[in-house]
């Protein structure tokens, strides 16, 4: 792992080959790597933008695409109103632009590989991005790992990767999908119309065939604290719970 990072974490210039609007606030940017790298679902890249006077801005973005032979990776970027880099991507970047990045990075929040124990994934908003890479990898690899995803979003229209997740739920018998909508009523029978709480996490974990062996949680600090307390209450050890919290 660390060797792979050392060998590949060089800056490279990548072309934007496609831009897709995912939700009102989130767009996906598909970048063609000039130097292909092998990565594990859950990893991120650092993106660096450079102004004409040499000023640079750097941010980390999780990779949404599953590892594959393709040299195109997907980053799903939420536009932050007071942001510096995300408004550039949303308002300025276009197909053909060259973007500097390096990766893959991160040696902790990683798809664990074939395991007998089911995974509990919990995300809020764009926090689903590294979890989506894991679910897409689960689908592509065929590794028989049962997965439950609890995804909190403001509204049905804000659910990132919604249609793909609904399709994956239909096509993958051992994927349980639970949506929690915080600003409008849920319409699917087993979804939730409230903010995350312990009962919700316990209920979603119970949809797995056996209790989860490991949990991945990604979102704001407040969301992650509620989710991890709920997962601890299920009996998982702290070391089996991996988190990513939005930085700045």
């Amino acid at each position, binding site marked *: 792992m660390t060797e792979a990072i050392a060998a590949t974490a060089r800056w490279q210039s990548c072309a934007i080959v496609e831009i897709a609007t995912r939700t009102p606030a989130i767009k996906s940017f598909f970048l063609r790597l000039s130097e292909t790298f092998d990565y594990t679902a859950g990893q991120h890249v650092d993106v660096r933008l*450079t102004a004409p006077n040499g000023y640079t801005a750097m941010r980390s973005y999780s990779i949404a695409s599953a590892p594959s032979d393709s040299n195109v990776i997907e980053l799903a970027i939420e536009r932050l109103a007071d942001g510096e880099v995300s408004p550039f991507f949303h308002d300025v970047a276009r197909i053909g632009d*060259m973007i500097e990045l390096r990766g893959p*990075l991160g*040696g902790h929040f990683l798809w664990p590989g074939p395991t007998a124990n089911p995974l509990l994934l919990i995300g809020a908003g764009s926090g689903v991005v590294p979890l989506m890479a894991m679910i897409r990898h689960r689908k592509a690899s065929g590794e028989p790992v049962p997965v439950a995803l609890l995804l909190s979003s403001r509204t049905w229209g804000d659910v990132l990767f919604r249609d793909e997740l609904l399709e994956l739920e239909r096509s993958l018998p051992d994927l349980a999908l639970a949506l929690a909508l915080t600003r409008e009523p849920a319409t699917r029978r087993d979804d939730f119309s409230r903010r995350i709480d312990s009962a919700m996490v316990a209920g979603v974990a119970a949809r797995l065939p056996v209790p989860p062996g490991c949990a991945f949680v990604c979102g704001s600090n407040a969301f992650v604290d509620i989710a991890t307390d709920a*997962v601890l209450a299920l009996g998982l050890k702290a070391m089996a*719970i*991996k988190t990513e919290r939005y930085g*700045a």
Partner: protein
Amino acid sequence: MVTRGFTGRQSGSELSERIPPGQHLVDNFPVLTAGPTPRIEPADWTFTLKVGTRPVKAWNWSEFNALPRTRMTRDIHCVTSWSKLNTAWEGVAIDDILADAGLSAPTPFALAHCYDGYSTNVPLADLATGKAMVALNYEGQPLPRDHGGPARLLVPHLYFWKSAKWVSGLQFTERDEAGFWELRGYHKYGDPWREQRYKND
């Protein structure tokens, strides 16, 4: 490589001298942690100093709080690219911890250990001579749990993953042993001014 159409939000020159390359200023205090936030009550808290595997001295919460206090106001820099200026800390300087244990120069390296299983390596030269402390207060208040309370290491001149939250002790080592993130691809030393983010930077 200039990015087409990017100008960025550049700070004034006075501030920009205090911001290492690739970093940007924040006013808030982001929380980044690899796992759940531990709950450590002061009554259950101890701080243990070891040389190799040998425990040299341990302090409980009240003993540790009776050690001499140091204040520091410093700029801090997180490897995820945010920097925060003028953060005010109070705690016990590593020099005073060593003095209370009767140690002067144990070994050239140390590993900080934490209640959540986290660890990180810092050379003695970066801990001693007033450079680092075990922080108990932030901005005049007891250190919040999210930020490592009741106590965290503070090594403000290195990337902030070195300032280990929920610290439970220091272990002096003969060799520079990698800690949690250093084993997972991060730089062994982590100087923000040399942008030592990842291994081989």
